[in-house]
């Protein structure tokens, strides 16, 4: 087990894991929609970007996030560039929070996530509805934002565990 922990492959794999998950989720539109629950959807990518750019930005580059946004737009079928813009706005909020915070606090992060996803979803709706004249379901966006906010603690635990493993591998 000890030798496995020191494996260079594992170290490299773990350090790229957030990036792999990001690209896998944008290509796959991961949201459990096959469960067929009415209105049930959450934005996994928002949670992933929020956590990693806030807690360990070394493992999720802004350029990769930009390209992930482009891929997401193509897969969903909305004009190219909108998701990139929204993801980067999410990054700017996390960068600002990182700059003004001395000791990270989960509750404060969680509340800032709510305001951030409401802001970026509003911007996305405004761009789609008012500029590109594509009709969108406001209720779906609102519920999506709500469920994304509620799911943050669960993914926080998972990502935090992963983050600790990465740090452990790095400092080993």
């Amino acid at each position, binding site marked *: 087990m000890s030798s496995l922990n020191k494996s260079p492959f594992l170290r490299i794999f773990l350090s790229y894991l957030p990036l792999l998950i990001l690209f896998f989720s944008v290509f796959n539109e991961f949201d459990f929609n096959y469960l067929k629950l009415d209105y049930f959807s959450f934005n996994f990518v928002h949670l992933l970007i929020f956590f990693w750019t806030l807690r360990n930005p070394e493992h999720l580059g802004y350029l990769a996030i930009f390209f992930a946004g482009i891929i997401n737009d193509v897969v969903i079928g909305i004009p190219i560039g909108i998701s990139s813009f929204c993801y980067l706005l999410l990054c700017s909020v996390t960068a600002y929070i990182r700059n003004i915070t001395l000791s990270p606090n989960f509750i404060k992060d969680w509340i800032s996530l709510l305001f951030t996803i409401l802001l970026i979803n509003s911007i996305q709706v405004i761009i789609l509805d008012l500029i590109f004249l594509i*009709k969108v379901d406001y209720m779906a966006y609102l519920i999506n934002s709500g469920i994304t906010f509620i799911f943050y603690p669960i993914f926080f635990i998972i990502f935090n565990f992963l983050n600790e493993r990465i740090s452990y591998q790095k400092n080993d």
Partner: protein
Amino acid sequence: MATGRDDFVIAIRSAFLKKKDKQKFSLLSLIFLSIFVIILSNFNFKAIKIIKLGINEVIYRSSYIVSIPENKISEIITKIKLHLYLHESYKKELIKIENTEQIKLLNDFLNAENKKLRELIDESISSEEIFAKVLIDKESPYLKSVVLNKGTRDKVKIGMAVIDEVYLVGQIIEVNYTNSRALLLSDLNSKIPSVLEPDDIQAVVSGTGNNFGIIEHTQDEYKEGLQDNEIIAYTSGLGGLFRPGIPIGKINKGTAGKINFFTDFTQLNYVKIVSYKVGEEK
């Protein structure tokens, strides 16, 4: 107060402009780049079109490969559900089969009669069918669409109807070289000119973003009449894109213009892309 404002400015400047934490690009430059991309994607220059087609081709194919595990899970869940309800569905199918023979005879007669009447008015309907596989079927909460594996190479054009068995599913909204995107009837942006039978009311079937549609652009007095009967919505062919008479969905009694589509959009595997020419003389 001034110190607080200075701190805010420093934090903002640091967040947007500084390339730290091993980041190769500053946030501000990438935000400007994404705005530039949004503006560019709004233009229809030839170069931009070609780049967009290239991006779409690569990403659709990659997405299809990446989605294979999730699609398999979804397939297994569907199979388990089908297995559980096998007895119930068998009973339903049995009743359907009993009625089918009678309906088929009536249908054959009506088809022959329809053909004769069209010949009398020198009108014909010619159609071309292209069979396509659904590559990406993501039930996104934002846009309801599917990506198909046929594109300009197979003579697919924007506006062509997409049909599952005999039921209308949607229409082509974007065409690339080897694939295309079809907007489903359930999408908020979908508007299909239709006719409501047996009352023969012209209407527009609109998507709602959910698994049902609604009737739009119909006078209120007609809408009241829809409450008491079971209504079938067919394409009217008025837009010139669709052949008249393709079944869209059913309005049950007392549901006030709510259309239940005949096709389950989550179960689409293979569809037909169809173009029609109506009204040309033989």
